[in-house]
């Protein structure tokens, strides 16, 4: 099949070889959405992405520390066809006046909703030098300026504090009824890791990485988590180079 069509990213966390990665992308009903404004809400995503088909779930990428959106998102569809249409028709169009990027994703797993940057957000915002008001100003150098009109959705506080955003863990297929166990509560990270141990080989490998990572993720420079083929609108390639120098 045509690789150029699949994804320019190669997620280094993917626990398989290139072939498996491509296969995952070809059958996936998940898209990764990038270059979003931090202020973009799930409802905005819903309005735009439901024009490509019925949406199953939306998982906002969150800042590890602040539990607020940090500029990326996963959208899960029911059908593969709708997923392809989302990539074909929405990628590169504007949402909140930003050209968003939509790529096939190999599938959401617990843990992937967190930004992988050192300070909690996305890596690209660590090294960004330009001013981007809708992504928290100058990277993390400047305190995030809240727009007067909009507030960041706080996923960690309020009446739902007992809830973490639900993870569609182990739910696949077009199920409409009840099902799926959902991990809630403050200790869910730990519990999930336990789940991963008992899960497939795929998750076992992740979990190994996870535990190593979570123990020292603050002291160790983060690897660039995503490979990007072209640096058209983003800056991760530059990041990579900077770090190597």
């Amino acid at each position, binding site marked *: 099949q045509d690789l150029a069509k699949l994804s320019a990213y190669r997620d280094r966390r993917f626990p398989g070889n290139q072939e498996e990665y491509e296969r995952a992308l070809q059958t996936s009903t998940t898209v990764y959405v990038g270059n979003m404004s931090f202020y973009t809400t*799930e409802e905005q995503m819903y309005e735009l992405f439901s024009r490509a088909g019925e949406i199953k779930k939306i998982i906002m990428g969150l800042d590890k520390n602040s539990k607020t959106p940090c500029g990326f998102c996963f959208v899960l569809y029911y059908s593969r066809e709708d997923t392809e249409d989302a990539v074909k028709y929405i990628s590169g169009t504007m*949402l909140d006046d930003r050209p968003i990027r939509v790529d096939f994703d190999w599938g959401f797993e617990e843990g992937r909703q967190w930004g992988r940057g050192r300070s909690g957000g996305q890596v690209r915002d660590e090294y960004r030098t330009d001013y981007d008001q809708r992504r928290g100003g100058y990277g993390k150098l400047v305190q995030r300026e809240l727009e007067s009109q909009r507030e960041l959705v706080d996923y960690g506080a309020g009446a739902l*504090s007992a809830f973490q*955003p639900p993870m569609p863990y182990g739910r696949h297929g077009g199920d409409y009824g009840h099902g799926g166990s959902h991990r809630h509560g403050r200790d869910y990270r730990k519990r999930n890791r336990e789940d991963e141990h008992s899960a497939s080989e795929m998750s076992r490998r992740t979990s190994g990485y996870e535990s190593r990572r979570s123990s020292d993720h603050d002291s160790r420079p983060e690897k660039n988590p995503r490979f990007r083929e072209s640096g058209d609108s983003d800056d991760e*390639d530059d990041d990579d180079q900077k770090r190597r120098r």
Partner: protein
Amino acid sequence: MSDLLNAHLTSPFVAQFIGELLPALETPSRSPQRSSPVPSVSVLHSLGSLLCAPNRSPPSSPLRSLGSMSSWRTLLLRVGDKCPEYGGAVDHKEHIETCYGVLWREFEHSKDEISECAEQLPHKIPFYGVLVGLINLEDEDFGKNIVDDLHCKLQEALSSENCDKIRILLRFLTVLMCSKVILPSSVIEVFETLLSSAATIIDEDAGNPSWQPCADFYITCILSCLPWGGTELIEQVPDEFDRVIVGIQSYLSIRKHSQDTSFIVFEADEDKSAKEKDFVEDLWDHIQILSTNGWKVDSVPRPHLSFEEQLVSGKSYNLSPISCPKQSASSSRSTISRERENYEAKLKYPQRLCRLHIFPSNKIEKMQPIDRFIVEEYLLDVLLFFNGCRKECASYMASLPVPFRYEYLMAETIFSQIMFLPQPPFKPIYYALVIIDLCKALPGAFPAVVAGAVRSLFNRIGDLDMECRTRLILWFSHHLSNFQYFWPWEEWAHVKDLPRWAPQRVFVQEVLEREVRLSYWDKIKQSIENAPELEELLPPKSVSNFRYNSEEDHGYTLSKEFREMVRGRKTAREITSWVEETIIQIHSSKFAIEVVIQTLLDIGSKSFTHLITVLERYGQVIAKLCTDQNMQVLLIDEVSSYWKNNTQMTAIAIDRMMGYRIISNLAIVSWVFSLSNIEQFHVSDRPWEILRNAINKTYNRIADLRKEIQTLKKSVLLAEDVAVKALKEFEAAETRLEVVDGQPVQAEKPGRLKRLKGYAEKAKDDEIAVREALEAKDALLARALEENKSLFVSLYKSFANVLTERLPPVSADGAFPKLRDEEDIDSMAIDLEEPSTMEMDHDNGRKDDRNSEKVTHRYSIKEQDQWCLCTLGYVKAFSRQYATEIWPHLETLEAVFGRDIHPLFRKAVFAGLCRSTTEM
């Protein structure tokens, strides 16, 4: 590192890039969204990466690494385009010579590529035809192979009823005749086969007139070929050609005028359609004019003329005879089954284009009617084959090889696709993307044309089909979201003074609603700064409407207690019994619904995900509380009240609850047809959106089940096969004997036998498992279909009830009441004639012409009439969209309607289902 990965990603692609150029055209379609085959687009992807590779991956662009080995492929793909590969040359002859110069050395390998280019870049077929002709001079086998190949593909396409492929292959056939690769008599033969098949189909005795759409399609195909080869045919085989023309003429005299009010975009045109020429008649007229003009067409390049001297010495081949599939004869069944067959034929052989006349005739580019037809074909083909390749799609749309401008025609064509009924070939969002890209590709010309189209459609909005109105609202809001929400709203500020139900006012209000959803309230408020009057039409600033805000509110304490339980992560079961004991037994179930729904929605109000979390954890609490339809209607009422300021969240919450089977689709229908909603029918999309979602979700379930069953059926066959083979192998091994010491003993080792037996048993088990899975799905589908049937029965009953109460009575002479003001339609016509000085230009400052004031925005339809028009419009739209699901239940539904059904309601249903209205 990144370069390395880069190379890894791109290199296999480069290697295969032409090798896998083109799989077959057809892809099975799943949803009603796809009424036409979706081609695989690999040629275009190859082309796509050729064209845009430099942006995509600077270090190792495929283009640069192609080298001379592959450059003939590039040249082949780009022949006829103004592009760097040809040094920017525009002379077609030069292109063909250059391309041929590299191609003839490779011709052994290039046969498939040429055919495939012709099939996926059909507007360049004349160039590919000449290239084949030239290579044919070098190697006669080459031409023969191409012709044989074409024959196979054409026969295949006819048998599989692949309309796009048939149409394009016939054009290629005609062009190959021009390049002396195919004998003119062969072309005539193909035409005559199609013609005689068409004539048979519409013959009452020999054929089946229900299949006229197929016959019409064949005739359209023949006519469509003539601009490419009419001249040559009349020169070389004049008598035979005349025979074909006479045949077509007699076909046209026998066939029935096709007048589908179902697919008409502007409702006021309904009556006109009976008098106006239909698509086939229209094309026939154009071709006749063309023949009197000496077959001169500006829009068809004729490169073979420059090579005539060489080509004439080529060897031409015969195309083996083809045959058209026989459509099953009608066995004089009921009217309903014949009409249903006709409906299916229409879906299988759809009319490719329903022209949308948006612009006044003085504005649209002057061109011969046949040129218009050809440009439309080009545009539709680019849209078809370049779906998913943004840059190439826009660049081919914008630079067709025609010597005149066509921006207005292009806009009309794209809008005709957005509005195409019953379903556009692709999702409407695709066309939104194309328009965005064209606005960027032609910044000086296209945005103004699009704006003009919007104004014109806005002026006639009251006349537009309801489904098309919704599509227009969705498109327009999305379009504006890509251009900073800029629009000269002051032009439309006057709608504020129209009655709440005036279609123009509702349109503006719904566009604003969708804009707010795509963005946020303050931003959209800012965007209408130049028309502050319109602020009144903005949706309320979205805040939830929680019932228990102060301690005085009845329920405040209970709600608080409930919230604490949720925070304490009590289980659904614990909460259910708490609700039972503390609320239901003391107060009432109704009050319990109020407290539970208000509180849960409030907990989940932060985002879509929060809502889902709450429903997944405590959906059971709600489900236990609302077991019957009446309770579920109360539940929906409560949702609607909590989110009364946010239609999107209302719709999402209801949709999710249906997804978790907390509420049934029947409850939703019943709620939508409750009095407070009925009163909204003509002033808001809110109830309709919720109804659309419910029907759509029901339909999606069925579509998914059907797809799964398809897959399972294949797996069963596969599993059967495996099981039989495994068993055979085991039996063969078991019976294999050898003689040891004069005694026959088994030749196989017991271990192997045991293993084989195990395999056989396992295979059998697998087979049984798949069979059981299939049975289970079949049962689910049967249930879903049953649910679907009751859904439509309930929907039509509800429509019948509300309409019967409100439609004006039929007058004594039996004439239908008129809802639409005839004068109003006339004033629309005046609007159209208005020389469009209101055009605006994004670039050169705005020509703010106040002329629009002159266009009288008379609106005189009474509220009740508008309500009826709107509701009838939805009856038609729902019937049309789900016609394939409704047809099987038609007899049941007829009973629902009964004898004294209002004729206007009946007309709307019939129109939606494409039933002939003559017997009414």
